[in-house]
């Protein structure tokens, strides 16, 4: 009984911190309609800033807290709103998501540059205080966390329901133009909500620091839990969000207490937030098909079959020359770039044509790699099996998330990636107890690897373009532009999506198999959850609507770690640049290569 009480209190405390973070997320979303994927990253950077002031510079804890939550975080929120998010008002979900991921990745870079990796203990608040409830001890920090949660809940309620500003904030979401006629300034209100939202992210981050330790990625991705809580409130209702957060805290705490402690159950515990994210998405009322307004996006022109053939032949010739000339190390790197290019092709299909933003595409690469490694055969059939398994997994995720679309679908892909990460890729199921596997190769020399990767890239590229010119391609784009019209023309919108997911996953899985063979040894660390994000950013920066964009994106993704190890001082800066570029370029999914296309057509005109 006392154990139950203790775990309940612990669960409520963690839930309280989640509630603070999730409350900020809901506030920014409900006033600006931009779902801030980077919310957790703001909390992470601010927690580092708090460490800097309170632990490194020796300021009193209360002063450091006040400076970070009251000054630093709101100012930062204002900057993000003014220079990134305001330009995205009314933009499609995909674009705001990519900008958010850009902010997230950029902030991780910023933190790495300012605070290089080292252990950074953070003292809890009021550590001499604490009370006994029955036989369990509630620390001062726990009390502070609970008090903050209550204050934030009350404060937000009063702000939104009892003040003119709050009323205007709510009005602005429904009709910003109308609200501005009545003398409110939508941009000011949006700025205010971002300032408060960032402050809450900071507060939540700081409160959680003694529990989770200061780490760039862990703290950033901790917000998946806050996403789940916010989804319980359907991104609108603060009371439901708070209830969801507390519920999550309790479930996690009880899982620690009452689930067995075998390796599987330990990974299962870590996967609970992602699992619950799925459950919440599953029980959500089905989103109605959106009606109203022409949506179209100007993609780059699809090349004809002849142009494709000529380009493929030219590309093949260049690769053959490279394979003969360059030294083995470079050849292997180029092969890696092409393998990443194939992953990018899977995103051309899913995101470029199908309009679905996937935050978990690298997971399918992992599935393909594990399958090939586990089969332990060098036959081409192993590669096909890798693609097949990935296709099945892709179909499963699409079937699970059939009811949701847009933002919720993108969050489902992130939840799925986390689930696979905790339950499969980072657990002994995938790479065994040693955490790595040997992979037999289909071809041995780096030059042959390069040719194999190039050949596969060409074949998949031709396939993707053939799909675009054919029936499935037209359907995918039709579904992206108007699901409602598709449905009234007799198309089963949901099945088309299952196909697209499955096909795209198959391509990523194939790339995963090639990746495994290229590396010869693959390990859990090759497929970390975070890898999904740079993948998406490079795809969008290079151009997610064309095969050339996929090629450029693959090469850039391959170059990032090369640059980082070549210029260690530049490592964090590169990540910052990546984030900034993505946030800036997110408006044009045709990416950098489209500039080249434009220059080419201008020259010919």
């Amino acid at each position, binding site marked *: 009984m006392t154990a139950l009480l203790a775990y309940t209190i612990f669960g409520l405390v963690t839930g309280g911190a989640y509630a603070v973070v999730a409350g900020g997320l809901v506030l920014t979303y409900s006033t600006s309609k931009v779902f801030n994927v980077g919310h957790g990253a703001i909390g992470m950077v601010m927690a580092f800033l708090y460490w800097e002031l309170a632990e490194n510079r020796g300021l009193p804890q209360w002063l450091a807290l006040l400076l970070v939550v009251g000054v630093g975080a709101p100012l930062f929120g204002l900057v993000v709103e003014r220079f990134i998010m305001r330009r995205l008002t009314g933009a499609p979900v995909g674009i705001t998501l990519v900008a958010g991921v850009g902010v997230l990745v950029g902030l991780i870079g910023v933190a790495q540059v300012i605070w290089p990796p080292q252990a950074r203990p953070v003292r809890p608040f009021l550590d001499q205080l604490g009370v006994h409830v029955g036989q369990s001890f509630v620390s001062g920090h726990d009390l502070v966390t609970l008090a903050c949660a209550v204050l934030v809940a009350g404060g937000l309620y009063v702000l939104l329901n009892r003040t003119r500003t709050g009323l205007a904030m709510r009005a602005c979401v429904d009709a910003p133009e109308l609200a501005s006629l009545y003398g409110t300034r939508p941009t000011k209100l949006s700025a205010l909500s971002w300032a408060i939202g960032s402050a809450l992210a900071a507060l939540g981050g700081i409160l959680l620091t003694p529990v989770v330790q200061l780490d760039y990625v862990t703290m950033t991705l901790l917000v998946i839990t806050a996403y789940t809580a916010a989804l319980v409130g359907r991104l609108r209702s603060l009371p439901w969000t708070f209830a969801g957060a507390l519920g999550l805290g309790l479930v996690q705490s009880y899982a620690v207490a009452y689930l067995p402690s075998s390796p599987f159950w330990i990974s299962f515990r870590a996967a609970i937030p992602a699992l619950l994210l799925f459950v919440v998405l599953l029980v959500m009322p089905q989103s*109605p*098909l959106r*009606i*109203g*307004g*022409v*949506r*179209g*996006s*100007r*993609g780059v022109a699809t090349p004809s079959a002849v142009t494709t053939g000529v380009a493929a032949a030219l590309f093949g010739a260049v690769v053959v020359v490279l394979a003969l000339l360059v030294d083995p190390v470079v050849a292997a790197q180029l092969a890696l770039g092409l393998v990443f290019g194939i992953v990018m092709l899977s995103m051309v299909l899913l995101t470029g044509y199908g309009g679905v933003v996937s935050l978990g595409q690298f997971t399918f690469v992992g599935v393909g790699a594990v399958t090939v490694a586990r089969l332990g055969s060098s036959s081409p059939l192993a590669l096909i099996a890798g693609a097949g398994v990935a296709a099945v997994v892709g179909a499963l995720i699409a079937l699970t998330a059939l009811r949701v679309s847009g933002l919720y679908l993108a969050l489902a892909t992130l939840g799925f990636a986390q689930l696979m990460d905790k339950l499969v890729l980072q657990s002994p199921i995938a790479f065994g107890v040693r955490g790595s596997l040997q992979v037999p190769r289909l071809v041995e020399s780096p030059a042959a690897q390069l040719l194999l990767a190039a050949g596969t890239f060409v074949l998949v590229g031709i396939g993707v373009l053939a799909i675009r010119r054919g*029936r499935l391609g*037209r*359907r995918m*784009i*039709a579904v*992206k*532009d*108007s699901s*409602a*019209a*598709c*449905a*009234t*023309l*007799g*198309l*089963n*919108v949901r099945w088309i999506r299952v196909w697209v997911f499955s096909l795209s996953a198959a391509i990523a899985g194939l790339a995963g198999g090639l990746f495994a063979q290229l590396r010869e040894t693959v390990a859990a660390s090759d497929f970390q959850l975070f890898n999904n994000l740079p993948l998406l950013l490079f795809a969008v920066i290079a151009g997610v609507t064309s095969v050339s964009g996929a090629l450029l994106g693959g090469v850039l993704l391959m170059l990032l770690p090369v640059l980082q190890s070549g210029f260690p001082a530049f490592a964090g800066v590169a990540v910052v640049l990546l984030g900034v570029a993505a946030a800036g370029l997110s408006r044009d999914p045709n990416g950098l290569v489209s500039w080249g296309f434009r220059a080419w057509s201008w020259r010919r005109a």
Partner: protein
Amino acid sequence: MSTLRVKGVTVRFGEVTAVDDVTLTVEPGVTGLIGPNGAGKTTLFDVISGLRRPSAGQVSLDEEDITSKGPHQRSRMGVARTFQRLEVFGSLTVWENVVVALESRRRPARLAGELLERVGIAKFADDQADTVPTGAARLLELARALATDPVLLLLDEPSSGLDRAETEEFGELLRQLSAEGRSVVLVEHNMDLVMGYCDHVHVLNLGRLLVSGTPDVVRAHEGVREAYLG
């Protein structure tokens, strides 16, 4: 020759009742569905085409209850529609828009040219659909709906954006469609088109059915003059 029956259909959005216990029948021919803005015409179209579940009531096509069927299933039974707020596939060409619809019904893509010719927008065939004028985009939606070879065609303000000559051509097209045995329902603000080409007219006001009858009956009705014609 298909008959649509709408029985006791009610649609509520929270506190607001957009469609209130509407019962009506659509026989083969051209049927007008008119009423002031906010009368519930488009909402009723959404219910008939399956994009919106009614809070209460029943929709049947040729005596088969289709209330629980999804929009794509209804399309396969021969229901097609256009949209008041355009729903063309903006990233595809005009020609591709029609081909998507043809392929969905397993009809040959070569029919696309004929359909575009028929509604009079063949010259836009290769243009990206979000670049054509509104009038042409509305006709594109009509061509796309016709590509599914429907028995019941729901047209939501098809003539807005058309000039006088184009509107007359459009009226003739309505007659042809009806002569082919299709039931056409027209939500329209152009009274000349409604009174000139409809065999039967239903008038909605504030979500309720005000009156049904021939154009002459409707024109003579006191309530209609008050609510709508002024």
